[in-house]
């Protein structure tokens, strides 16, 4: 019998099982020990492991990232949690100038086994400063690993892998995935970095969905089937290293690539995927990126709905790429995780 967990439960389970295994692991961050427990992802951990291994911190993202790095240099394995990825902009110096570089710049003398969990916000008027998906900034920096699993199964396996990894990993979650349910094996397992998953096979075009957009791609694939098009749907899971080979293999077959990201497109994960595919294939495929409108995230729902790609816009773009017909606008309801989501935060 399959065991179903939500994404949140999978994250929580990964933390708990790893913390029980290795006393060097600890969890720090704003609110990790309060009653909301970072949307439930750290629920019960403070109770089980005590305040020295699960603790709240002052609002000092820069120094707290440095503290986490220092602890990692001393051999501990910190998991630093940010309830919004936007706050990482305060930690960029520590992440990019130190965590990413320490090992190389000191000739291999040290490791920085640090996990930074960062949650992408969305919906209910989160607005410009509480909704950003900034993974591409981190993908640009060598020395960091960046993963963005889109299922409970991968969330557990990649978080365990991240915690066991001897290099800094930014673990990207998405608020619209939090309640997604899926099968999650009971026992601990680590998934490899740099391996994409072909979620659905298809021959007419390749859809790559980053983080929450994987869900929208799956829905888009269903819409496309109604028009007789079969999409291969790929989840990169690991953004850095990126499994460009798996994507290229698919595009070699389908000759068409659509990447949907929950971030802006310029210098985004989609750019990287298109570029690495172009290098590998030497032409012979059509491609399109979908991502956020090139503005700050608006709060009002009518604009927010236009700001994000969704199954309809993905399907429409894919259809246009496959047929040349730009006019198809499929009808479909909004994703339940979006339409049913209620604030206040």
């Amino acid at each position, binding site marked *: 019998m399959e065991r179903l967990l939500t994404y949140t439960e999978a994250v929580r389970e990964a933390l708990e099982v790893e913390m029980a295994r290795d006393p060097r692991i600890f969890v720090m961050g704003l609110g990790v020990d309060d*009653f909301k427990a970072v949307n439930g992802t750290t629920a019960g951990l403070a109770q089980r492991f005590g305040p020295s291994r699960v603790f*709240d911190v002052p*609002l000092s993202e820069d120094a707290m990232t440095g503290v986490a790095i220092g602890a990692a240099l001393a051999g501990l394995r910190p998991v630093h949690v940010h309830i919004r990825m*936007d*706050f990482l902009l305060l930690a960029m110096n520590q992440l990019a100038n130190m965590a990413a570089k320490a090992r190389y710049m000191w000739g291999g003398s040290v490791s920085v086994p640090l996990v930074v969990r960062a949650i992408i916000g969305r919906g209910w*008027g989160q607005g410009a400063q509480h909704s950003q998906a900034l993974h591409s900034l981190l993908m640009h920096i060598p020395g960091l690993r960046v993963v963005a699993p889109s299922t409970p199964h991968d969330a557990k396996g990649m978080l365990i892998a991240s915690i066991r990894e001897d290099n800094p990993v930014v673990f990207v979650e998405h608020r619209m995935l939090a309640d997604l349910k899926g099968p999650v094996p009971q026992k601990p397992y680590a998934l490899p970095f740099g391996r994409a998953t072909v979620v659905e096979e298809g021959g007419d075009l390749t859809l790559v969905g980053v983080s929450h957009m994987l869900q929208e791609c799956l829905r888009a694939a269903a819409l496309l089937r109604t028009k007789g098009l079969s999409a291969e749907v790929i989840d990169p899971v690991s953004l850095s290293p990126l499994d460009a080979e798996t994507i290229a293999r698919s595009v070699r077959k389908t000759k068409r690539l659509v990447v949907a990201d929950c971030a802006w497109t310029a210098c985004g994960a989609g750019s990287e995927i298109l570029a690495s595919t172009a290098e590998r294939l030497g032409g012979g495929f059509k491609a399109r990126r979908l991502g956020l409108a090139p503005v700050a995230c608006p709060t*009002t729902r009518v604009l927010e709905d236009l*700001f994000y790609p969704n199954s309809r816009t993905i399907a429409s773009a894919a259809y246009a790429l496959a047929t040349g017909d730009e006019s198809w606008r499929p009808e479909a309801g909004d994703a339940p995780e979006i339409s049913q989501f209620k604030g*206040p935060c």
Partner: protein
Amino acid sequence: MDIRRLYRSAYRIRRVEEEVARVYPTDKVKSPVHLSIGQEAVSVGLCEALRPTDTVFGTYRGHALYLAKGGDLKRMMAELYGKATGCSKGKGGSMHLVDTAAGMMGTSAIVGMAVPQAVGYAMACAMRKRDVLTVAVFGDGAMDEGVLGESLNFAALKKVPVLFVCENNLYAVHSRVEARHAKDLCAIPRAYGIPARSVDGSDAVAVYKACRRAAASAPSFVECRTYRWREHVGPNEDYDKGYRTRREARPWFKRDPVQLLARRLDAGVREGLEREVEAEIAEAFRFAEESPFPGPQELLTDAY
């Protein structure tokens, strides 16, 4: 200073926020709301010490400051409703209110971030010889951020005419100030050479006096001790969540900043003001309800 004006302002803020909380379950306000109920005296007292031309920088907990500074109520409500007539055209929501004509600079949802901007704004006004006082209003949580120290240091160094107002409601989300600071917050500005004093933030008159005095010797710092009555974000109370108790809150309820002012007015005057305010509020909610949502073309406007 005019007690009637103070009361009118405090009452208005309280009632607007109570109404926001009341309509919230209808989901018409699709925006996180951070209410200032219980903290009204800080904004009200501060703004009584300011001129319309003075400029304030605030936070996502910004309804009170926006209203006290003279921000347009209708446009604020329309903003919360996500309407095109909102002060930010529906693009900002409750956390990003703005009314530059009233000296209300836009508010920001990244803790501490606006503080150096207030310093820079004040510096620019001084450079241009504009007789403007600039105020940075922020929570106790902002005191944790390094940018506060940097901002205080620069203001002290360059003698920038900026007033720092720390609205210390004892919590940042669910984390007590003592869990984030070993010492008194006023020690920090003082360390950089900024005079600081702490004042009873439930008493609008005390806040007014402290801010007036501090304004005269800017750069300066005023800590207003106050208490948030509702949950960090959202319309409800949260005394049952374990991080604080109603017992802790009770003394603060007793020193309700709106009631403290009410007691100093006679009933007739008060009721007159209240009637006016209620009518204005009803009208503002109606305006918000009836205003149109922005059209799709608005997605890409105001980008550059």
